[in-house]
């Protein structure tokens, strides 16, 4: 048994199609890939929101902000 159906290269390559593992699960892989992509945006947005909220509570006096502006 082989994960791509090939157990030997004793074949004519013109008769061979896909050779990646787990053929037949393309739709599932696409779904998992989409979940990964959407999940990334969800987690990234949450993290960025938390970072912005922390920035909002920082530098109450404005001194560091003025220094940052001066540094350009």
């Amino acid at each position: 048994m082989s994960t791509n159906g090939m157990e030997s290269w004793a074949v004519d390559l013109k008769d061979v199609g896909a050779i990646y593992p787990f053929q037949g699960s393309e739709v599932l892989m696409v779904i998992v890939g989409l979940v990964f992509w959407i999940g990334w945006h969800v987690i990234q947005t949450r993290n960025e929101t938390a970072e912005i909220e922390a920035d909002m509570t920082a530098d109450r006096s404005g001194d560091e902000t003025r220094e940052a502006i001066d540094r350009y």
Partner: protein
Amino acid sequence: MEGNLNALTTIFTEFYYWVTIVMMFLIHVGFCTYEVGVSRRRNHLKTLMKNAMAIPLVTVTFYFFGWWIYFGFPNGPGIAGGLVTAPFAEPWNPLMGTHLSGVNPGETGVTPTDAALWHRLNGVFWGAFLLFSITTASIVSGAIIERARSGAFWIVAVLVGSVLWILDASWGWHPQGWMVKLWGYHDAYASGVVHAIAGGAALAFLIVLGPRIGKFRPDGTARDIPPHNVWLVTIGLFLIYTGFWGFYAACNIPLISPATIAGQITGETWTATNIYLGPTTLSAITFNFLMSLSGGMMAGYIVSKGDPFWTFSMGLCGVISASAGNDLYHPIQALLIGAIVPSICYKLHYFVERRFKIDDAVGAVAVHGYGGFLGVVVAGFMLWGQPSSPYEGFAHINPLGNFAGAVLMFVLGFAPTFVVCKILNSMNLLRVPAKVELEGVDFALNHAFEASVREVGTAEKAMIK
């Protein structure tokens, strides 16, 4: 007609590898830029020269013996057979220079068969393998910055670049390598044979070398020593990504006929192959390179909370972790492997730093060592049961073979480097004294620079009327 086709194929192949060599040189521009970006200002010049001088040192030693090791040792020797004769790779052979494929009267060590095959390919194959060699050595360089003696690194660079990696390539990255034959080892784009072995060597060097002064607080917790210039680090890593394209292309045979392979493949369809002469395509590795890079960068951004250094390093780790099977994976498989493995490596880096007080300045052991190791292990499962070779009688790809191979790669880098570093350390040749480390390893160079600036400035000002 057939003769012209063969000639065209040979010249195409020669040009193909030549282009990969040029592309791979960018890896070293990237390494130099990256290491200088990570190091602090008082260590720039020595950091640059430490890495850059690995290029000529590995080049000359790879010419003298590295190339011959690759062809001489695929059987072990003593595991699957004896030492293999490879006169065309001996440094005194006429085929290790300009040659036009005939055999001159009295020319020794050159057979018509060797001459026909190697007269145009020897230099470009040697060059492509050499660029892998320099890369393997350079991976160690970044980990040890700001306190290792350059001379010690250069000795280790020759050991890793011109002996250890090419020995493991002969065993596990050669169409007739014993690991491929007996274990079904599969590592198409060198997760293990380049990255795991380099990571093992870097870890050994770091253990003997010790951390930079100030890296750990009195209570043993680690301080962050941030890069002095994150822009240089970014440019360096992107140059490494760019050069990595050449690395991938150079791992393939671009065009070959079933008859030339002389294995089991039937028919007349010409193909590109991996190093084991198993069919793949440039298209496949383009899909998979970019998807694994993307998986690494996306996961790296999340786990490092947007840290550029780690996001880009994890992109590299994504490619490295999928490289063992990127000739055969589906792109989404490459994406997921490229995301999951680097996340584990990132956690491992900080665990090892905290637990064992290892100061790896660039995360080389994590990105290359753990990433490469795990990449080989994952490929053993993902490609389970597939043929490792077009030749009959070779073991199939399997988890145990790849796991054992990954261990062998890491240990082959670790053990000899550990011994050599211990010897160098006992001779006070491994690490600069604490005073010099605090002054900065560029101290004398900086003084000379400032004296020159003062002198020429004074002379010029004296001429103002």
